């Protein structure tokens, strides 16, 4: 009986934790961007932020996220995530990513902005398509 209680307690605890802060999944083609209302379809440029309360805001482009977070309290946001351009659909930490702005790599909202988890992938594409590299802090100054 005691053990059963423990197990129940354990599962209760797990379910509590799993309601916490974690990245949301984007249902491509169905979800809309929180900032510009567009349908999100591009899994190379999608982005999201997760607040401390676990609420997920989804964006169709990194530039939409950058513009939207200006209106938000920085302290209320737990996670900033972007999809990696070189690994479509895979989310990565936006604050550690490297960004490429290149007129030859269009992004959904016209900023020509793509993000990469690995800096070398960004520089490889930069050599091929030209453009400028930015870090997260430099990128924030651009918006």
């Amino acid at each position, binding site marked *: 009986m005691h053990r059963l209680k423990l197990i129940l307690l354990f599962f209760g605890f797990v379910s509590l934790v799993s309601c916490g802060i974690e990245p949301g999944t984007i249902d*491509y*083609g*169905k*979800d*809309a961007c929180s900032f*510009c*209302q*567009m*349908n999100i*379809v*591009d*899994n*190379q440029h999608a982005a999201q932020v997760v607040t401390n309360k676990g609420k997920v805001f989804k964006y169709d482009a990194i530039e939409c996220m950058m513009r939207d977070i200006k209106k938000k309290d920085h302290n209320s946001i737990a996670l900033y995530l972007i999809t990696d351009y070189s690994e*479509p659909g895979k989310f990565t930490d936006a604050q550690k990513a490297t960004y490429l702005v290149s007129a030859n*790599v*269009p992004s959904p*909202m*016209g900023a020509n902005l793509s993000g990469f988890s690995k800096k070398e992938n960004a520089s490889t*594409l930069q050599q091929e*398509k030209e453009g400028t590299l930015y870090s997260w802090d430099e990128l924030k100054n651009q918006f």
Partner: protein
Amino acid sequence: MKIVKKYFLIFSLFCYAGLSANELTVCASCEYPTIKEAVQLAQSGDTLIIEPGTYFESDIQIEKPLTILGINYPVIDGQEKSYIINITSDSVTIKGLSLKNIGRSYTTDFAAIRTYKVKYFHFEDIKLDNPFFGFHIEKSSNGVIKNNIIRGNAVSEHNSGNGIHLWHSSKIQILNNSIENMRDGIYFEFVKHSIVRDNVSRNNIRYGLHFMFSNDDRYEKNLFEKNGAGVAVMFSKNIYMKYNTFRLNWGSASYGLLLKEINDAVITHNQFDQNTIGVNADGANRIVFENNSFNNNGWAIRFLGACYGNKILQNNFLHNALDISYKGNMNGNIFDRNFWSEYTGYDLNKDNIGDVPYRPVKLFSYVVNNTPETIILLRSLFVDIINFSEKVSPIFTPDNLKDFNPLMKPVINND
């Protein structure tokens, strides 16, 4: 007499030029077995006749003015390698081909037919089977894209391209095409002075037609059905939208027409049937809505923030769950002489105008704006009561948000 001679001379010169253009026939057993070879050996202004059959070719570079005519839709199979036809010359005409198996890539927008810095192109009667991008028109002008059929396979895939994709182009006519199952049916980015007419765009995962940063365009007499959203007009000016039908765009992010940061548009004689939201307007200024019909939508028109100086005149609002939802003050928006199916006033002097103004915004739509989940309460008694109480003594709706001259009969002049 001299003048006549001179003209005769010029005329005969033209005739000669006309005759000098050769016809090159392409087929497996012909002098030219491949299209690529024929294109290379042709002179400027020649015509290639493609006999029926299947040609396994890709990256056909056209660098001189040519006419390519297919007989009975010969198939060019690109074997998923690259572009099929890549055009960098003015005055190219392509008719009657069937193109399939275009390359797919994350970094390059491969298309069945691509133009780059080209004028006076004409693409007609072309069938595209499961392309990545269909037509990719870059920095080009004065072109016609007509009577083509584009069938994609983008039901669940998001790494899909657009049917007709225009970028930095002007004076393009897109007429009578049929586009299904692509990402966007037709996509305009930095496109000016272009026309989209008589097209059918359906089952596309994002938009039937999509404008980004494009000014002075018009689209009319098109059908947009079952797309992620019918049409999105974003960051654009002077767009004319007439006689279009927006149908069955259902879903949480679905709209018949999405307006975002657009100015000075005209929206007349359109039909909005059974969309989650007929028109979703956000940052839309100086837009005239006239003679449109909104039938059986969830919302007919939803105005979000920063909408100034819009006129909503002589429209029919028939059996929508919520006719208008509104945020903020009136800011110079005018509702006048519309027909509202939920209007319950009298017309005692029989001038076809209701004697009491109609308030199109229900209190409940404010609640839904703030908490979307409450929509499940729409048909409950409580909601009816708060709507009724708001109607009797309005507290939340801006005082002047009403139609002073609601019509007693629907507007008929829809064509």
